[in-house]
């Protein structure tokens, strides 16, 4: 997607967030950088997938985009206007979340109708009668039978609960829905039901999705663009087809290689990542990925790479920077294994 003149629905510029950790009584305060230097754009009507593993900072990023957590650096623009923490209520009408765990995202003491109608009541939309009607409509849209309106969540299955969460997110007709691992806690057969539902609703209601997940197989199915996060930074952004065909960043390549598809003859993928694990509290110097990168060079240890713009996206890696000098005698990285 080329940079054109339309304003992105949501844009993050230089977004960063650090947390202060309790230090020792008389020692220096420690801080942890959960998100740093994130530039992200979500265009209206598309599905942007944010892919990352544990410790990448994707949940913190989602909280900031929802207006729940103030960034320590950078800003967020919604339809061109800056998002302010004080306008939480106004933001809530336009951005809604769907969380991962269907068992803890619904209040166990409330009925389904009460849960779904909460956004309407908080924002004072309509009167009791029209609210009840809106709840019925949205329940139908997500495939929940109307008799479930008066039950409590513990009588529903995981898939049904997730549908309730979707209904609650959509009842205000938001513009952007941030889905934080919406299907990870569900069974495989239910996952595909929910993903199909999300796709249908996007078409019907003209929604824009920011889908956070670690499941790459699903990403290719539903997302138009992908952003890959590693240890607080976005290391690559590209259109989905391009990322899957020609991943640039070594981490993206490793992620794609690790996807285990149900094809028995392929065996297990070669593991080139080593056992260093990403520790957000003590990130490596220079490029955060260098301890696990098989193409690591001296410059990777010394200096953090800058974003290199490419057609359709960007990548943060010294190998792609314009000043990169191909070093003689090193075996180039094998391209994405089939």
């Amino acid at each position, binding site marked *: 997607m080329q940079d054109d003149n339309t304003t992105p629905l949501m844009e993050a510029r230089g977004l960063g967030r650090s947390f202060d950790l309790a230090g020792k009584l008389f020692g220096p305060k420690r801080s942890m950088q959960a998100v740093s230097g994130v530039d992200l754009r979500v265009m209206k009507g598309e599905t942007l997938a944010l892919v990352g593993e*544990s410790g990448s900072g994707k949940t913190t990023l989602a909280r900031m985009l929802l207006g729940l957590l103030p960034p320590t650096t950078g800003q967020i623009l919604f339809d061109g206007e800056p998002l302010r923490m004080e306008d939480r209520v106004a933001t809530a009408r336009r951005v809604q979340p769907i969380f991962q765990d269907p068992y803890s995202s619904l209040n166990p003491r409330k009925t389904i109708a009460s849960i779904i109608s909460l956004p309407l009541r908080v924002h004072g939309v309509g009167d009791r009668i029209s609210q009840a009607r809106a709840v019925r409509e949205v329940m139908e849209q997500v495939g929940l039978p109307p008799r479930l309106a008066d039950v409590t969540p513990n009588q529903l*299955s995981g898939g049904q609960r997730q549908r309730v969460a979707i209904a609650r997110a959509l009842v205000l007709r938001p513009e952007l829905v941030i889905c934080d691992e919406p299907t990870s806690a569900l069974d495989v057969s239910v996952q595909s*039901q929910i993903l199909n539902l999300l796709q249908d609703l996007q078409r019907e209601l003209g929604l824009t999705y920011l889908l956070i997940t670690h499941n790459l197989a699903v990403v*290719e*199915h539903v997302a138009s663009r992908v952003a890959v996060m590693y240890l607080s930074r976005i290391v690559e952004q590209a259109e989905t087809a391009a990322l899957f065909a020609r991943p640039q960043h070594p981490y993206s390549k490793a992620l794609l290689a*690790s996807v285990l*598809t149900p094809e*028995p003859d392929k065996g*297990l993928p070669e593991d080139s990542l080593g056992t260093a694990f990403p520790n957000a509290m003590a990130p490596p110097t220079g490029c955060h990925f260098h301890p696990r990168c098989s193409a690591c060079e001296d410059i990777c240890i010394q200096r953090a790479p800058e974003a290199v713009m490419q057609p359709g996206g960007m990548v943060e890696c010294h190998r792609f920077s314009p000043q990169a000098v191909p070093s003689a005698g090193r075996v180039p990285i094998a391209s994405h294994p089939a």
Partner: protein
Amino acid sequence: MTALLEVTDLRVSIPLEDGVLNPVRGISFKVDKGETLCIVGESGCGKSLTSLSLMRLLPTRARTSAGALRFAGKDLLALSEREMNALRGDRMAMIFQEPMTSLNPAYTIGNQLAEVYLRHRGGTARAAHERAIHLLERVGVTGAAERLRQYPHQLSGGLRQRVMIAMALMCEPRLIIADEPTTALDVTVQAQILRLLKELQREMGMAMILITHDLGVVARVADRVAVMYAGQIVESGTARQVFAEPSHPYTRGLLQCIPIPGQVQPGQRLGAIPGVVPSLTGELAGCAFANRCELAQAECRGGAIPDRVKAPLHQYRCRFEAPRRAPQASASRDSALAAH
């Protein structure tokens, strides 16, 4: 050659307040020395309880019964608790899903590793420590001597799982039961852990029962596969057989739900299985999958369902003959071949 583990008609029932729960309803399988059997199924199919019942780790109110439950010739159901304790950790070991909670946070890694060894083999603490260091290095934990003094909360999830694997291997068991060993781990760590398990298995000649819901893991790791649904094994065979020609409607449905990167049309709908898993309380007549199966007829809901044999070792339980080649399976194989 007799199998290392032989299970015939295993049944587990747990009396609850509102009825009797039957999570395992008569399953049979065998595991030979050195082979990997994957039991795959979704939540509520009874696979975890199966693994616990093999080690006789179920709560006391659960009742286990089987036609035969034999490990290396010994009848597990006839053993006393003491004899069973001697087997657990020594000849049969288990790896659990949540490395956060399966290691005791109050003791060091070294303490917990040594405990297994000392309990079963006796000997000096020094010998146990040396073996622990050796195994930690083997599973890829760097700085093993240092790690022995650390506590579980100081390690990442992947490292903790490696420690669990080392703990399971301390006494060179003949059988490892791994219950969703990689579900709680990141995708990049998952491949490493699975590869490690396979290597160790080859080196030490261990058999492995791997329980998971992830068909991708099953395909890459299993020698043989057993698909469980609602407490029964609905299809079993070698990995190649089951993935190339899935014969039970549930297996076919599951495979259609999983998108394969590189073979996806954007915007295409994913296959799905409508409905939900039936409750395991009380008795189930006929085929448990009937209310979700597109082929279901009236006779599926009552009476016994026959076991059909598709090929040597490949069996499935259905009233209907499976089509010669399931369309989805062949399409994925063809395009996979084309991509090479």
